[in-house]
């Protein structure tokens, strides 16, 4: 899958998993997901990690080398999933 279509797919997954009531295409690929961006918190991170594990077979953990950057934006998260996915 191309990075771009993975980003689209992931945006839809985020909106669904976190019940954001937003149009997936409105999530800017480079905008922050947490804090001032979409305003997600650690409980959202936990929720999102469950959806990612179920969809892509990637169990996120706090010791992942890219953990600090992967939740920084949709694009970074897509990149981390592309690298670590098992399905």
């Amino acid at each position: 899958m191309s990075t771009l279509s993975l980003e689209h797919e992931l945006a839809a997954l985020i909106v669904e998993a976190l019940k954001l009531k937003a149009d997936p295409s409105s999530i800017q690929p480079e905008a922050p997901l947490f804090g001032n961006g979409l305003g997600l918190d650690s409980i959202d991170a936990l929720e999102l990690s469950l959806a990612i594990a179920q969809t892509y077979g990637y169990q996120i953990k706090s010791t992942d080398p890219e953990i600090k950057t992967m939740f920084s934006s949709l694009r970074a998260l897509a990149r981390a999933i592309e690298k670590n996915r098992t399905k």
Partner: protein
Amino acid sequence: MSTAPLIRLYGPEDVLAWEADGPRSVAEFLADVTELADMLPDQRSVLNLFSSRYEFLVGFAAAMVRGHVTLLPQSRAPQTLRRIAGEYGDCYAVTDQGDPVEGLPCVTLPSRGSRSGRTPRSAAVPHIPLQQAVAVAFTSGSTGQPMPNRKTWGALVSVGLAIGSRFGLKAGLCRSVVATVPHQHMFGLEASVMLPIQHGLAMHAGRPLFPEDVRTALVEASGRSVLVTTPLHLRACVMAEIALPSVEMIVSATSPLSRELARQAETRFHAPVNEIFGFAEAGSVASRRTVAADEWHMLDGVVLTGQDPEWSVRAEYLPRPIRVPDRIAVTEQGQFRVLGRTQDQVNIAGHRASLGDLTQKLLEVDGVQDGVFFLPEEGQAPLTRLTAVVVAPGKTGEDIRRALRWSIDPVFLPRPLVMVPKLPRNETGKLPHDALRRLVEQHSDPESTHEP
């Protein structure tokens, strides 16, 4: 003056904590405490912001040795820290993350490298007077403005020992404690710090978030662990498709655990799930095995006093009887069931109910994932109606209302019933009043609800 030792039931070479880079022995711990105590300034109050549970304990112990009081802020948000530092003028911080509060003296632990070569000066376990005030916990924002609650060393020791004795830890059943809860939180301090150090157990210094983190922490703690956690983390672990090591026991608190989730967690971890009931003013006071009973059993040394509807808890270590913030029904055996928060008593058109009860009924509706009943600002209309905020994907407000008609008196049916994607729960799962009010304001536009 009566005292109690800082730690119990360890030998000098026993592991007291598992840090990211390996074990910390009791001898290393005592040396760290002595070294940090010597570095602390003369101010009497300390904000302990260490993110490692082990370093937090070193800071807490060093402060006690110096006779200082550790402040336990509800959040690490800069404005919260600034406000508390302002209220306790005689204040400094211990931290691993630079200056946390502008203008506050800051102390960090010397680096590990510089510490490892030294000769421990003292291997003696400090004894702390039972009456010494050692911590201030702030009550939850869900009952209004945060209020300070002073804790003595005697109170913390008593609760730590009572939790252990309730769950049979004295028998040497367990070896370590892994916790997902913050150690700056009252329950976290009691169950993830006091519990291990009063029973000779090794604490895991981390604070695992993701299920994979929990798995790793349990492996690092080398088995036979007590997992101290919350319903939110338990749910994530139950849903994750990973093999989780078995644990000896799970202790959950901070928000009510459903019996179904408790049952799933028991299966997943091959261990009993126990719940603790407590509140910041008194600390942990009762427990139950969630799958087996609705009734809470008082911890050793705590008794209920009073009569319906107002009950208090009494214990030797508490300065006075402390009002139970929830409405409870007390059984003849001195156990109790929680009916709802006392402040949550409502009277609608002459009918009395508890918002906690109503919320429970709402949560039992098929398809409802989360939800809450509350009383909007009064005085706007001759007859105040309740508001309910509900998370139920795929359901309409009318579906929910129809189901509620079966379980609650019609006067309590919510108007409005607002469907939202999620509730503004904080990281311990609670719902601050302000956040809830803001959420309803945001969704008060009829277009944004699923109202028929």
